[in-house]
C-alpha cells in the first residue's frame, strides 16, 4: 500500500479531519458552488475580494478526503494572494496533479507550491484528479465571476 500513502499523506488526512477555513464568510463578496459528478461531492466557496486581492476565503460542503483536504490547503495557500497569483498557483497545482500543463497556462515562472506539494501522489490516481481540483475549479469560476454551478467531469 505504499502507493496509497503517497496519495493520502498524513498532512492530507489531518486537513480532512480538521479542515481549515471551514465556515461561512459573513462578509463574503463572492460565493460559488462546485459539484463533482463522480463522487457527488459539493463545495461552497466564500471569497472576500478587495483591490484584486483575496483578502479572505472559506469553504463549506461535504466531500472525500482528497477534495476536503485540497479545499482546506487551497484556502490557506491563496489567502492574501492577488487574483493573478491565485490563478498561477492553480496552473502549477494542475500540472502537479495531472502531469500536464493546463490549457490556459501562462508562460511565466511557476510559483512555489509550498504545502500544496503534498498532493503530488494524486498524479498516480487519475480518477482522483477531479477530487483534488474541484475546489480550484470552483475558485477560478468565482474569480471569473461566473454564475452557474461548476461541475467537474
Amino acid at each position: 500500500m505504499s502507493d496509497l500513502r503517497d496519495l493520502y499523506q498524513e498532512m492530507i488526512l489531518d486537513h480532512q479531519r480538521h479542515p481549515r477555513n471551514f465556515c461561512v464568510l459573513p462578509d463574503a463578496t463572492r460565493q460559488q458552488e462546485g459539484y463533482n459528478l463522480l463522487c457527488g461531492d459539493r463545495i461552497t466557496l466564500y471569497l472576500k475580494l478587495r483591490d484584486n486581492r483575496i483578502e479572505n476565503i472559506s469553504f463549506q460542503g461535504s466531500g472525500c478526503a482528497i477534495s476536503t483536504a485540497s479545499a482546506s490547503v487551497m484556502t490557506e495557500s491563496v489567502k492574501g494572494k492577488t487574483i493573478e497569483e491565485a490563478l498561477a498557483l492553480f496552473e502549477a497545482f494542475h500540472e502537479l496533479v495531472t502531469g500536464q500543463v493546463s490549457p490556459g497556462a501562462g508562460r511565466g515562472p511557476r510559483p512555489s507550491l509550498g504545502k500544496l506539494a503534498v498532493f503530488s501522489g494524486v498524479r498516480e490516481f487519475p480518477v482522483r484528479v477531479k477530487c483534488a481540483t474541484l475546489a480550484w475549479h470552483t475558485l477560478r469560476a468565482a474569480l471569473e465571476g461566473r454564475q452557474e454551478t461548476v461541475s467537474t467531469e
Partner: protein
Amino acid sequence: MSRLSVPRPRLAEPNAGSKWQAEALRDEFPILQRPIRGKGLVYLDNAATTQKPRAVIEALRRFYEELNANVHRGIHYLSEQATQAFEQTRSAVQRFIGARSTREIIFTRGTTESINLVAWSFSRRFLQPGDEILITHMEHHSNIVPWQMVCEERGVVLRTVPLTSEGELNWSAFERLLSSKTKVVSVAHVSNVLGTVNPVREIVRAAHAVGAKVLVDGAQAVPHLPVDVQELDCDFYAFSAHKMYGPTGVGVLYGKEELLEAMPPYQGGGDMIASVSFERTTYNTLPYKFEAGTPNIADIVAFRAAIDFLNRLDMMEVYTQEEKLTKYALTALHEVPGVVIYGRPAHRCGAIAFNLDGIHPHDLGTVLDQEGIAIRTGHHCAQPLMDWLGVAATARASFGVYNTVEDVDRLVAGLYRAREFFHL
C-alpha cells in the same frame, strides 16, 4: 484479524446438491484470471456491468470471422446466415422472458434506450395534458429523466411513490397515488442500490385496475431472477444485455403486441419502413418498425451465448445461490465496526449499499481498489434515492454468478484495512 475468529455462518458451506459452483464458473471468465494491481480480481461491480464468459467473447469473434454481413436485405450467403443468427437471438430472448411472440422483442442499445422509446412513443399516442405518470423514489435516472422530458413536453404530471424506512415501496402511498389519471406506472423490478425486489405482479394488478399501463425496468432483475413477462402481465419490460453477461450496446424492450402496434415508430430510417416515397411512407411490421438503421448485429448475435449460459445455469438456481451469498455478505458486513447498510427489504437481490463511518465512499473505493477489489461508489445514478437516504454517496457491492464467499471475505478484509489506514 479478529474478524476471522468469528465462526462463519452456515451459509458459507459448499452448496451440496447445487447444480454448479461459483468457483467452477470463474474459469469461464477470462478477466477473472487476470491480476489487478498485483492481486486476484474481486469484481463486485456487477450492477454496473457484468464480466463476459468465454462463450460470448468467442461468439463475437466467430461472427466477425465467419458470418459478418448486414442483415435483412441481403440475398448472399453471409447475409442470410447473419440474419438467421440475428433472429435466433430474438427467439432466445422471447423464450428467456416468456414473451408470446418474437414480434414483442425489440432490440435497443440498452435499458435506457428502451425506456426512452416507450416514453416517447407511448406518450405521443396515449398521453394527454393532465395525465399522470407514477414512478418510485428508488428509480435509476434512466427511469426518471425520460419521463421528466415527456412531462415537460406534453404537460403530463410526474408523481413519485415514497419508500418505507425499510427501503421498500410504500404500498399504501402507492395505492393513494394511483388513480384514473394515472396512465403509466414505471418501476424498477429490482433497485440497483438497495437491492429491493418490488412486487411487480401486484403493482401491475393495481395499475391495470385503474387502466394504467406498466413499464418494468428489469435491468437489475433479469440477471438475478427468473422473469416471465406473461406471468407478471406487465405491458413493457426493459433490460440490458451487458448486465447479464452479454456484450455492451444491446438492450431489449419487450412490449405487448397490441400496444406496440398502436404506438408510432421512434426513429426513422432503413429497416423500419415498408416503403418510402416523398409523398407517403409506410412502416414495417413489428418488431422492425422500432428498429431503424443497421442494428448492433454482432453483439446481438453474441448475446445469445449469454442467454444460453444463463439457461444452462438455470435462473432459479442463480437466484438461490446468489441469495445465499447475499445473506452471507450482509451478515459479514454487519460485523464490521462502523458499517451502515442502507435498506432492509424483505425481498432483495443483487446489490448491497453501505458506508463505513468516517470514511467517504470515494476514499474507501480507492483503498479497496488497491487490494484488487472493484466496488462502485457514488450516487449510482439514483440521486433522488441518495437524497432520501440523506447521503451524497454510498459504496455498493453487487454480485454475479461467479462471486464466491472468498470474494466477500476479501471485501470485508478490505474494509478492516481501510479503517486501519484511516486511523479509525
